[in-house]
């Protein structure tokens, strides 16, 4: 009896292609996609942190430090913007331009090496009030970047400036112990000269080879004075709320749009679609109607999501309503078009379920809906540009986190509206299958 039940169940599963794909092919497909994406992150288990480096000191010590930072493998340090055709030799960042880059979201952090650093680069022991403070300007929506930069700064100071370290140590010795004998002083000076020579050789070598593998980071515990400043969201309570409201919202919007588009399949199955199309309704009219419904549903979902975020997580919703309306309208349109396309390329609810689950989960993972973008590698971030999630999150972050004006949403509007239009046109083309036999 149980054997018959098993046989019947397996036969049914095998003949329901949608369920079959969902059960076996889908997990493998999903795993394979992730394997390719994460498998490409070789050489480092964590992504490199981008940091803009501004040298306001221009001393030998600060230059040596900059070179050390450029060599640091866990940092993607830049002292100036990348050269372009329009600007083949861009100038170095200043504190103001670096801060602007951080504010606009182009970099998560900037390190300012203060004037006077060369005179008092590091401090041994208490009472070093003359030491100039480093400043790390950062976007607090990326809580990792500033801490990584601070830690790597300490490490770099330790390993990239041995001569400076020894010289300062010697001064400390003179001050605290009472100085050296002439012979000891001579030996000390010879040693320092050798260290400077080695430091110069190391700098010359790194200039040719770029970042090199370095030993494990040394936690010296306060050799340099660092002040971390939030330049974005300094007055905001919870940096990730708008991120996840958008990220999670868009992921579920995609599922909703897929289900709403699936009503076409239901109506085709029941015969209602035939009846509607035999009335005075054209396929284009019908699809536009379904698209509008799906988009309005998505709009309502996102609105409720953000209102909930305002109510429970104190998201500053009501001062950002114009930007929210723009982002929500274009996001809703894009996901609704996506739902229409999914429904029009599939033939059954089973196919739609399997296909949409695979695509939506993949898009959500790559687009930043499942885990924060600052944990992603550059490769993943680039792939994420092909997802609605990434563009929607980017737009909402501009509005809610960076307080940018609506005019800054140009790229998001262009991508989401443009892709929405393209997807709808493609969906209309596939929907010809319902028009006539």
């Amino acid at each position, binding site marked *: 009896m149980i054997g018959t039940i098993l046989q019947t169940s397996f036969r049914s599963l095998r003949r329901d292609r949608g369920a079959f794909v969902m059960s076996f092919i889908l997990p493998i497909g999903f795993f394979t996609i992730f394997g390719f994406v994460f498998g490409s992150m070789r050489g480092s288990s964590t992504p490199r942190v981008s940091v803009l480096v501004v040298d306001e000191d221009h001393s030998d010590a600060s230059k040596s430090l900059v070179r050390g930072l450029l060599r640091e493998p866990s940092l993607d340090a830049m002292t100036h913007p990348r050269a372009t055709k329009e600007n083949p030799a861009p100038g170095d960042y200043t504190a103001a331009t670096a801060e602007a880059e951080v504010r606009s979201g182009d970099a998560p952090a900037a390190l300012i090496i203060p004037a006077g650093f060369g005179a008092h680069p590091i401090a041994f022991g208490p009472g070093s009030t003359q030491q100039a403070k480093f400043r790390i300007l950062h976007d607090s929506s990326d809580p990792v970047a500033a801490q990584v930069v601070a830690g790597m700064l300490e490490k770099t100071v330790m390993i990239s400036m041995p001569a400076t370290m020894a010289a300062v140590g010697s001064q400390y010795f003179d001050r605290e112990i009472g100085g050296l004998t002439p012979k000891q002083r001579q030996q000390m000076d010879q040693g320092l000269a050798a260290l400077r020579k080695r430091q110069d050789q190391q700098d010359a070598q790194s200039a040719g080879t770029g970042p090199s593998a370095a030993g494990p980071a040394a936690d010296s515990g306060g050799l340099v004075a660092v002040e971390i400043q939030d330049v974005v969201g300094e007055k905001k309570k919870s940096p990730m709320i708008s991120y996840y409201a958008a990220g999670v919202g868009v992921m579920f919007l995609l599922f909703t749009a897929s289900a709403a588009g699936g009503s076409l399949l239901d109506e085709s199955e*029941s*015969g209602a679609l035939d009846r509607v199309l*035999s009335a005075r309704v054209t396929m284009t009219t019908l699809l536009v109607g379904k698209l509008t419904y799906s988009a309005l549903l998505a709009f309502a979902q996102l609105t409720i999501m953000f209102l909930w975020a305002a109510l429970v997580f104190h998201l500053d919703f009501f001062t950002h309503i114009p930007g929210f309306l723009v982002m929500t309208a274009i996001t809703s349109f894009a996901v609704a078009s996506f739902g229409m396309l999914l429904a029009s390329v599939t033939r059954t609810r089973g196919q739609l379920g399997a296909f949409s689950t695979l695509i939506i989960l993949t898009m959500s993972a790559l687009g930043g809906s499942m885990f924060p973008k600052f944990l992603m590698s550059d490769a993943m971030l680039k792939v994420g540009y092909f997802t609605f999630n990434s563009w929607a999150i980017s737009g909402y972050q501009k509005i809610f986190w960076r307080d940018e004006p609506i005019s800054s949403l140009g790229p998001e509007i262009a991508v989401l509206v443009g892709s929405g239009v393209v997807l709808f046109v493609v969906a209309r083309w596939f929907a010809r299958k319902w028009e006539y*036999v």
Partner: protein
Amino acid sequence: MLGSFLSLAHCMSGDPTNPVPLRVDAVAKHFGAVTAVDGVSFEIAAGACFGLLGPNGAGKSTLIRSIVGRVRLDSGSVSIFGHPVGSSAARADLGWVPQELAVYPLLTCRENLQAFGRYQGLHGKALDDAIAWCLEWAALADRAGSPVRTLSGGMKRRLNMAAGLIHRPRLVLLDEPTVGVDPQSRNRIFEMVEALRSQGTTIIYTTHYMEEAERLCDWIAIIDHGQIIAQGTKETLVARAFGSRSSVTMHVGATRVDLAAWAAARGGTAQDSVVLCSVEKPAEIAGLLEAASGDGLEVLDVTLQRPNLESVFLQLTGKELRA
């Protein structure tokens, strides 16, 4: 009768101010190597109830979908009151009641009628009046606010019909409207169709129930292998197939005799264990029984009846209509 029907249709088709409700002209449709409809032509006169009968796979559904403009024809044309099928005017004049329950199950009766009325371009008072008429016609006024999923099978069928007539079309295509309903609901549907006829609506009616065609249709066409193989009134079809003879149906037991050849030798047909013959007089049955006995056939029972549409259908297609 046949002549009068066709002449009426032709007479009307020649009058541009009063065109034929439906003209199907040499319609053909192929699906790959399969010919679904093979050069079908016919016309329907105003106010007629045209029965379209055919076994499963005969091409009936494709022909129906051609009439409602849901098939891209390989050749031929269909016009409704002189307008090409698919045109706005043709859509306005045609009401289609598909055999599927093509309504929204979560909406109420009234909401369904509102939706399909709007799809047909009705608004305001015209829509309200149409909904009221439909609910009354389908005897669903007291269930207007009930969701479809809570209705009985017969009620759902009636709503399905009402949704196809919300715009009060002059030509109505009823595709097996009584499938799956109980006898009481079927009678109610007959009354609805007869009410439509009394108002002058032209009807195309497909069914697998011969008694429905006999009761409702004044013109019947039989389609098989994509072609109309016979059409006329019930009387002319019977007369053409059987003349004045009566049909004899014999069920025989298992035999090694070639039943088809045995029946053919006596001007009849055989299928499985059933032999269908005809006799001019009832007394001729004795001769058939004697021949069967002589050839070693065990006759289990014999039925003598005046031929009807069922007999004609069986004679022409070799199949039971409900098979």
